[in-house]
């Protein structure tokens, strides 16, 4: 019999019972909760007179609606404020641990989960948020769910699941200088397409993935969903294990070593068979910039805006024309000639300490270009922000003309006050360039933190390898 994939190992370890039709009742170890997708689930519990099954398996944080400035005065937007206060009330009523808005541990749910050691290898982790795939970077099975499933997990600590197909995406060889985890995942999505991973749990592997830090692996797994895969994962190695030493929710002492021994088994067996294998050559990956309104619409910074006239598939060509019209771009324009209005460094994709260090390194003593109306850095959590300030990164950004903000999702999806105005063009380290994502009529170009910093200084996209 062939060996098991990492996905199958974790899935099998969590099956409570199997239905005749192949649907499994899967036990959920960790449930992260935020203010946007939970109120209707808490309300459902109340209406049915149910209590959470295991309240200690939950951790809540407000992140989507929170302001990134003047936080001590509260939330000006009354509708946002009500949603955040509803989370506070629900957590108090049901006894769920919450890092409230002014707790220094508050931050983006996918940043704080690992930071606190709430996320652990080998666990099943869910959250009412598609970027839950981020946690797969630690050899966990993590995926986003809708609000009905949030309520199901609250009430039963389980989910009904069909086993996903497995895909291995191997990035062989070594990345060139200036090429980051973000470029890797954008290149992967450009290769497989936004629906390439639909129905699959993806395991990222190969020398280039192994060489990434755990934070880099988080950026890769974070965007698995942009390739259609609900779950992205990476095998456990010593970097993974070391990451969790001393984290508040992680086991300590002898229990940690017992856990670590178990975690070291969290990798696909050498003879495991995947339903699909995709291979990329790391050396061929260049810094990426998205040009359209879907993350698969991405090219190397050295390339030009693609021309729909060269696309044989009429449905695709039509989609490209719509995207060019929305983005206000002309086919065949070199990417490096595209000027920007705003820069956003943040989001669950790229707001961890290494991301901020990479951006600050590129900024150096430079100044934000005159044509850039706003450049902002939004750390992923209060603890990331503190760490960055200890290292003096805030001073580098502020001296260059960036704004240094409080942690949250911010302009990744513009549910708070941070947004693009119609027609504004943004170099963004976030994960989605959909129409209206960063504000109605806003134009998003997805890039790495280093590329975003370089664009801020130049006023247009530039190849960070030449700086």
């Amino acid at each position, binding site marked *: 019999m062939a060996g098991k994939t990492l996905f199958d190992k974790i899935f099998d370890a969590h099956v409570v019972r199997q239905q005749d039709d192949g*649907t499994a*009742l899967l036990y959920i170890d960790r449930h992260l909760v935020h203010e*946007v997708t939970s109120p209707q689930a808490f309300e459902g519990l109340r209406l*049915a007179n149910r209590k959470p099954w295991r309240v*200690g398996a939950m951790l809540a944080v407000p992140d989507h609606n929170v302001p990134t400035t003047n936080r001590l005065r509260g939330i000006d937007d009354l509708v946002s404020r009500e949603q955040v206060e509803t989370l506070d009330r629900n957590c108090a009523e049901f006894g769920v641990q919450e890092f409230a808005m002014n707790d220094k541990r508050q931050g983006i749910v996918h940043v704080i989960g690992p930071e606190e050691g709430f996320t652990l290898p080998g666990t099943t982790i869910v959250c009412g948020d598609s970027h839950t795939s981020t946690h797969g970077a630690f050899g966990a099975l993590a995926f986003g769910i809708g609000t*009905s499933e949030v309520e199901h997990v609250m009430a039963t600590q389980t989910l009904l699941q069909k086993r996903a197909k497995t895909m291995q995406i191997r990035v062989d060889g070594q990345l060139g200088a200036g090429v980051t985890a973000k470029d890797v995942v954008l290149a992967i999505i450009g290769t497989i397409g936004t*629906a390439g991973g639909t129905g699959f749990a993806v395991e990222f592997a190969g020398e280039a993935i192994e060489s990434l830090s755990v934070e880099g692996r988080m950026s890769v797994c974070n965007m698995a969903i942009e390739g259609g895969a609900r779950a992205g994962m990476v095998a456990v190695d010593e970097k993974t294990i070391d990451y969790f030493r001393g984290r508040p929710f992680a*086991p300590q002492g002898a229990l940690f070593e017992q856990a670590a021994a178990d975690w070291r088994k969290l990798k696909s067996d050498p003879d495991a068979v995947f339903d699909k294998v995709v291979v990329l050559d790391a050396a061929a990956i260049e810094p990426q910039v998205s040009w359209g309104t879907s993350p698969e619409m991405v090219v190397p910074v050295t390339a030009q805006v693609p021309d729909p006239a060269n696309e044989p598939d009429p*449905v695709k060509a039509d989609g490209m024309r719509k995207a060019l019209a929305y983005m206000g771009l002309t086919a065949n324009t070199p990417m490096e000639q595209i000027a920007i209005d705003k820069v956003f460094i943040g989001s669950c994709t790229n707001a961890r300490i290494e991301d901020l260090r990479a951006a600050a390194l590129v900024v150096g003593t430079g100044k934000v270009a005159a044509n850039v109306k706003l450049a902002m850095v939004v750390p992923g959590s209060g603890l990331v922000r503190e760490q960055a300030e200890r290292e003096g990164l805030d001073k580098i950004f502020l001296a260059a003309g960036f704004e240094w903000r409080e942690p949250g999702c911010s302009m990744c999806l513009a549910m708070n006050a941070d947004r693009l105005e119609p027609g504004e063009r943004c170099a963004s380290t976030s994960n989605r360039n959909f129409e209206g994502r960063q504000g109605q009529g806003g134009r998003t170009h997805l890039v790495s933190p280093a590329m975003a910093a370089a664009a801020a200084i130049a006023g247009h996209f530039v190849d960070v390898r030449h700086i």
Partner: protein
Amino acid sequence: MQAFNTFTGILAPLDRANVDTDAIIPKQYLKSIKRSGFGPNAFDDWRYLEPGEPGMDHSQRTPNPDFILNQAPYDQATILLARSNFGCGSSREHAVWALTDFGFKVVIAPSFADIFFNNSFKTGLLPIVLPEVIVGQLFKEVAANKGYQLTVDLQNQVLKKPNGELIAFDVDSFRKHCLIHGLDDIGLTLQHADDIRAYEAKRRQTAPWLFLDQA
């Protein structure tokens, strides 16, 4: 959840691939703590000429005449036809709530994003996957016949065209059962509460570090 019965309804053609959940229901409407009332804001950016915010009287906004769901008879549609990868992006179940609140009971596409597909069944919206060529054919037929209708028979897993032609579709048997009977998943799962407790007891032995909250 309401039981899903056989019905005949107007098919609205939304000729786009990768329709994402941000397009189906823009972020500003996710601030609601309710489960209803999203219908007027389904496809908000495409549907109205002015930007929208929660709390506005949306009936006073200017509909975009070019958007298909603003054109009769598609404003009465109950079946949505779209291209591949429908519902990609954010996990927001609000997208499903917006579609059902608008009046849709079925979405037909060559493929769906996984989370949207899952969410649909939880709210009684039936996502039907059909091969690209059949979807392409439906787009042609609806363009040629204004007010084109389909009958959706979930029990027998067929769509019936106006000319009587049948199109068979697949659906997971358990999900079909839940839809047809309008069953609440949570109630069903809690019938297995003893199994869940037994799993936890066993797991606590093999992986005690996962139960520090119960130490």
